[in-house]
């Protein structure tokens, strides 16, 4: 019973804080670039900020980093004792009333080992920013979700609250179609100055974010591990570029290694940071659909890119559309729906039109044009093309396919598999 009482105290306290901080956010949005300067410096110029929080940061960092301390325990401590600094300096005897034996052991052990200012300094040197819930820069959008993280760690910067933010998510093992669509979407959103949030995972997430970075847009990756751990390893370069162009975010203490159970909770942050979630490609039962559930719980808009009915990878998207999700037929139209740009000319807005590139086929020979017509975003084998064009002998078919590659029409995917180049 006692615990529940505590929680209600907390929530009433935090709500009042939210109001103060939101007014800060508005002011801050005007001079956004300044936010990127050292927080301490920035805080000195802002009278509305509770200075005490900056003294608290090193202690909070310690408190949140104690192994074996769950969020509930921390909440109890914070509610009863107020500041992390007080908790840190509390004599062991007083803690006996609050913590069980194991927790006490973890607590005192950690207190002995931890160098409060040194560790926080190290964090700063690594370029990791630490935003506990009470911090004025803690993203306002996250305060509104049902289960906000106690603190978030950031490498790079936080999403700009003055800009529109959208999540682009999807399966890790995507088809050629999915990767093409994610790429197109990422590029278009970047050009419309929309910030893109995703999980930097393999497949759709990474492809979408890469497209944003390449188009010069801003993108933010929410990781299921510490912000200083680049996972998956093959996205190392992308990690660096996201850090330059946007930010890497995580609610987990730096150094936390990726674990399967850490990923579903981070999905709530991906949807929490965005106003809309776009599902590019997802199976009916998948991690992506967990994110969608969280987005719906948080009251966010969900959009899906339609796929073919036979395609299991689009099953989740089609199901969402059936359930009433927004349908994305073109990135421009979606951007218009957000109210950012005027309604696009329907002809120009056809997302697939550019990909079909009909104007380029003039250079092709009649046979090449015929094979080109059979190219698809899903890779097809040589025998498929041979069956489609039985009059073309096989050795000529191989030459045509390579020729199409040279004309930027086709692309080799696996041994003997070709798909349309995006």
């Amino acid at each position, binding site marked *: 019973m006692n615990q529940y009482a505590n929680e209600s105290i907390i929530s009433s306290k935090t709500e009042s804080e939210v109001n103060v901080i939101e007014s800060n956010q508005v002011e801050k949005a005007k001079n956004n670039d300044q936010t990127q300067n050292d927080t301490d410096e920035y805080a000195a110029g802002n009278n509305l900020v509770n200075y005490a929080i900056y003294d608290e940061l090193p202690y909070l960092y310690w408190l949140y980093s104690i192994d074996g301390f769950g969020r509930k325990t921390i909440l109890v401590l914070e509610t009863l004792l107020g500041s992390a600094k007080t908790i840190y300096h509390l004599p062991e005897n007083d803690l006996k009333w609050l913590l069980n034996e194991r927790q006490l052991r973890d607590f005192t052990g950690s207190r002995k080992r931890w160098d409060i200012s040194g560790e926080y300094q190290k964090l700063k040197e690594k370029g990791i920013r630490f935003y506990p819930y009470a911090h004025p820069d803690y993203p306002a959008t996250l305060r509104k979700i049902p289960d906000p993280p106690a603190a978030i760690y950031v490498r790079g910067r936080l999403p700009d609250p003055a800009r529109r933010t959208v999540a682009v998510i999807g399966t890790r093992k995507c088809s050629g179609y999915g990767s093409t669509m994610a790429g197109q979407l990422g590029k278009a959103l970047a050009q419309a100055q929309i910030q893109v949030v995703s999980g930097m995972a*393999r497949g759709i997430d990474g492809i979408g974010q890469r497209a944003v970075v390449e188009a010069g847009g801003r993108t933010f990756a929410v990781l299921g591990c510490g912000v200083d751990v680049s996972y*998956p390893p*093959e996205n190392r370069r992308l990690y660096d570029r996201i850090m330059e162009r946007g930010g890497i975010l995580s609610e987990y203490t730096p150094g936390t290694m990726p674990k399967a159970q850490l990923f579903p909770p981070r999905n709530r942050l991906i949807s929490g940071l965005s106003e809309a979630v776009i599902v590019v490609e997802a199976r009916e039962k998948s991690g992506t659909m967990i994110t969608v559930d969280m987005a719906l719980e948080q009251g966010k808009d969900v959009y899906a890119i339609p796929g073919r009915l036979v395609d299991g990878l689009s099953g989740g998207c089609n199901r969402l559309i059936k359930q009433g999700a927004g349908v994305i037929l073109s990135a421009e139209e979606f951007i218009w729906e957000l109210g950012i740009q005027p309604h696009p000319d329907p002809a120009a807005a056809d997302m697939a039109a550019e990909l079909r590139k009909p104007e380029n086929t003039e250079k092709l020979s009649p046979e090449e044009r015929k094979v080109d017509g059979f190219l698809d975003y*899903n890779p097809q084998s040589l025998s498929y093309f041979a069956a489609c064009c039985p009059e073309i002998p096989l050795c000529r078919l191989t030459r045509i396919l390579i*020729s199409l*590659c040279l004309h930027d029409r086709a692309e*080799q995917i*696996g041994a*003997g598999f070709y798909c349309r180049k995006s």
Partner: protein
Amino acid sequence: MFATVTSGAILGIQSYQVQVEVNASGGLPCFSMVGYLAGEVREAGERVRVALRNTGISMPPLHITVNLSPAHIRKEGTAFDLPIAVGVLIAMGELPEKSAGDMLIIGELGLDGAVKRVNGILPIVLAAAKRGCRRFLVPAVNAREAAAIPQADVCGVSSLQEVLLYLTADETERQHIFPYLKPDSSRSDKINEVPVPGNRQEEIDFAEIIGQESAKRAAIIATAGFHHLLLIGPPGTGKTMIAKRIPTILPPLTPEESLEVSSIYSIAGQLPSVPALLTGRPFLNPHYTVTEQALAGGGKLPMPGLVSLAHRGVLFMDELPECRQSVIEILRQPIEDKKVNIARVQGSFTYPADFLFIGAMNPCPCGYFPDQEKCGCSRRTIHRYLSRISGPILDRIDLCAEVMRMEAECLQAGRPGLSSREMRQRVEAARQIQADRFRGTAYSFNSDIRLKDMQQYCSLGKKETAMMRKVLEKMDVSARAYHRILKVARTIADLEESQDIKEEHLLEAVYYRMNDGKYWR
């Protein structure tokens, strides 16, 4: 009394002459053997003594010393039993002094005096015949093998009794008792009908493979220009079937090649006694658990490994990424130099290893990539799987062909494809063009062309050069791969009897160069 008998032995692939010197004198009776001998050679003394007694000759109490000269090379094997026995008999005075002169004797003895089979007869006889030796006394089981050398007068014996009979007889009687074997004159007619052990190629034909046209095309190009080939495809699509049929489209072994290959098999002890010479192309298909030693050749005095047994034939490695990395890396030298060097305490041994390498693998561990509906492999697993075949090996494989899963209706439609005969005709025509082109040079195939001669043999026109520049830019092709593509294009041009390498030849060569580019990274 002193006696000397000529014999021979094998060191690596080379054969050398061994003089068996026997001295019998008075003194403390004993039988001692010297000359850097391995255990089994030392045991020869015991075998000789018992075999002589069981043939009816008792050894008088003499001090007998046997030396195998040259004494600085380690002797192994049991082939010295018979020459030692003959040497002892001469030294004892049982045989006339000159009876074994101008004759090479070789064979293992049983305790009952039987003369048994030994390995490596063919190269020993070949080398001795080149040195001028004409007469050979060999085990009857090996006689056919030795008789494959036309200059050799071969007498096959099956017991010590027969040896005594032969050596005591005069020249005319000898001819009468043991007529010399001559090379099998009917051999040339039977070419390609005699399979290498375990390889019954006469029963198989490419016509049995339905579809898979691109893999067949790649097989033709590979055999025509001697380009190594990698077959990629899901399990159960016929990669092994295709590889097994590649020897059927290779031209038959020439007599010189046959002698070369048979010599290696003789050393390895894998030559069938009848018929003596191999005429079919070897096809070796080691399991992927094969060890480095088995592949390259192993032993204190190394025996030829699989790469050498595949000399002038095909080495097929199925499930290539499942092989141990070190095993795959061993293939580097033979593929590049067409021989394999093995260093041992005894010295460095070189075996020929000029084989056509055919590898087979799945596109990913589960075999279904890039079909996302079926493939359960992550990008990373696929990458790890592919990267087990290292860059240097991939670089040396010029051709890469996909083997597709055939749909049921396709298999039932059963439109027969190209037959081995048709394919071989095309291969032979292309090889003839190459033979004419490379007459008087060190090359025999397009794949041999070295960088310095690329300009001469693989020059491109303006249009073709421009196209290749585009290929280099767009398709992520390395400089080394570029030259490989040109060589394959040369072979394709030869297959189509075109003097110049044209755009279409280059395009097709690029198609079969799948092992480059991003699929592998």
